């Protein structure tokens, strides 16, 4: 394999050696000149594009691959998300799919030789009324059938698992119970991006940053190449992994998508003592929170109320968020919020991703990841790579094909996916 490189393996020993000798670490991924042709061109250097490239190279030996990123890798949603992973989805196809992703996440650090800091803290979705408690019961049963660890718990257990949460009847919407999902947790998002990039690079994949795709050439219903700000590339296979920008990129190939772009905001506080272990979500209050290993609280909410390509934060978000967080954890009232940011999410009508072929031969999509694409990235990358290598649609992603909107065969994940993460 022409490009394969022996990269220095990261280990405790390499860390010690490095600190004793004081030598600089070698670059985690290299810079290459743009080739005139590749076997596969992946547009978008987020976690989906990079994972797809990695699995193409590792599982199928397809290494003549370019990942084209208009900015820096991880500059989109992949470097802005709140890093939550879980698999307690409502539909059987949804939970099977995300369960495979969790499986891949669990051994990802080993696979990539990169510490992705997976912390299995448990994921808790609070119910503030009878109807959400009923839906949770339903979700728990669907999950158990699929072999996923998921159960409804009462306030006593909530108090035990997360003592800082106010389970009294003081709040306007008291907490009645929760869906408890022990395998859920948080993974360091930047590490996942960098880990996939480094591993893909070492297998021969070319990562081109600061390079934008401006046109896609199609002849006779087939992709023949892409035009980039760094030059033209001829290729028979193009994969669109551009999330919030995915309709713009698909339009270049003449493929229309049922996607609208919505900003999703998040915020973080100063660091305090560790007082919250699990990830806590409240659908009724449209808010979720977790505490990082460094002690900061990370908060998120639902997508902004209107579509936009702007990543500017809003005061409404900060105000609403603070109010809701204090309903759940009054003890945070003196903790300062230090930063707020926003990323673009590609929302589909049925809250399911769109993965697979399109009417243009050789043009594939892995988009529609909305507010849940971080947890789905490993499995989407693995299955998209398999599709590209074999030409056969793998069972796990068959329910998420673009033509489901033509067949009227939508997925029904809104109930389990609507609060942004």
């Amino acid at each position: 394999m022409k490009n394969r490189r022996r990269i220095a393996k990261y280990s405790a020993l390499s860390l010690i050696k490095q600190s004793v000798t004081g030598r600089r670490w070698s670059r985690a991924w290299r810079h290459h000149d743009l080739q005139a042709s590749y076997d596969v061109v992946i547009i978008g250097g987020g976690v989906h594009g990079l994972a797809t490239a990695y699995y193409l190279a590792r599982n199928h030996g397809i290494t003549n691959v370019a990942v084209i990123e208009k900015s820096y890798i991880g500059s989109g949603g992949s470097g802005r998300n709140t890093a939550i992973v879980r698999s307690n989805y409502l539909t059987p196809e949804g939970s099977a799919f995300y369960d495979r992703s969790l499986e891949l996440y669990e051994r990802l650090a080993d696979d990539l030789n990169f510490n992705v800091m997976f912390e299995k803290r448990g994921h808790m979705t609070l119910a503030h009324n009878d109807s959400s408690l009923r839906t949770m019961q339903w979700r728990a049963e669907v999950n158990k059938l699929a072999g996923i660890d998921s159960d409804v718990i009462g306030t006593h257990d909530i108090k035990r698992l997360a003592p800082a949460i106010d389970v009294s009847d003081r709040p306007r919407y008291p907490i009645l119970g929760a869906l408890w999902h022990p395998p859920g947790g948080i993974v360091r998002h930047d590490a996942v991006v960098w880990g996939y990039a480094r591993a893909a690079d070492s297998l021969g994949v070319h990562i081109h940053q600061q390079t934008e795709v401006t046109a896609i050439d199609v002849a006779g219903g087939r992709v023949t190449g892409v035009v980039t700000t760094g030059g033209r590339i001829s290729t028979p296979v193009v994969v669109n992994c551009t999330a919030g920008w995915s309709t713009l990129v698909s339009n270049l190939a003449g493929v229309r998508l049922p996607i609208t772009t919505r900003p999703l905001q998040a915020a973080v506080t100063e660091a305090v003592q560790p007082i919250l272990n699990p990830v806590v979500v409240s659908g009724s209050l449209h808010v979720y929170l977790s505490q990082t290993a460094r002690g900061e609280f990370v908060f998120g909410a639902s997508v902004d109320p209107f579509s936009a390509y702007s990543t500017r934060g809003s005061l409404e978000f900060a105000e609403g968020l603070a109010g809701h967080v204090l309903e759940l954890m009054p003890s945070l009232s003196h903790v300062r919020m230090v930063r707020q940011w926003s990323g673009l999410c590609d929302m589909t009508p049925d809250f399911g991703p769109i993965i697979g072929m399109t009417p243009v031969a050789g043009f594939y999509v892995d988009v529609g990841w909305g507010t849940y694409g971080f947890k789905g990235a490993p499995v989407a990358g693995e299955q998209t790579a398999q599709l590209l290598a074999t030409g056969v649609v793998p069972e796990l992603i068959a329910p998420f094909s673009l033509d489901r909107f033509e067949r009227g065969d939508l997925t029904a994940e809104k109930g389990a996916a609507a609060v942004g993460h």
Partner: protein
Amino acid sequence: MLLILCPHCGPRNADEFSFGGELVRRPGPDTGQESWRAYLYTKENLAGWEREQWFHGSGCRRFLEVERNTITNEIRLVRDVAEGTA
């Protein structure tokens, strides 16, 4: 904060409105499945100037046509949809 200059109520925070998405013309009843499917699902999702519908729920309760730049959130036209039919 996004200010929308309602022709009936004056400048109001976007909070008071609900966003109805890009304006698309409803296909005729006999135009076939394809155009109805496109009407339901396919989006332009423009990066730039977009014509969209907003409903002033906490104000005059009128449907408005708005031209907004989806990159900068600048608004250059707001009018009652009833006015806009040409």
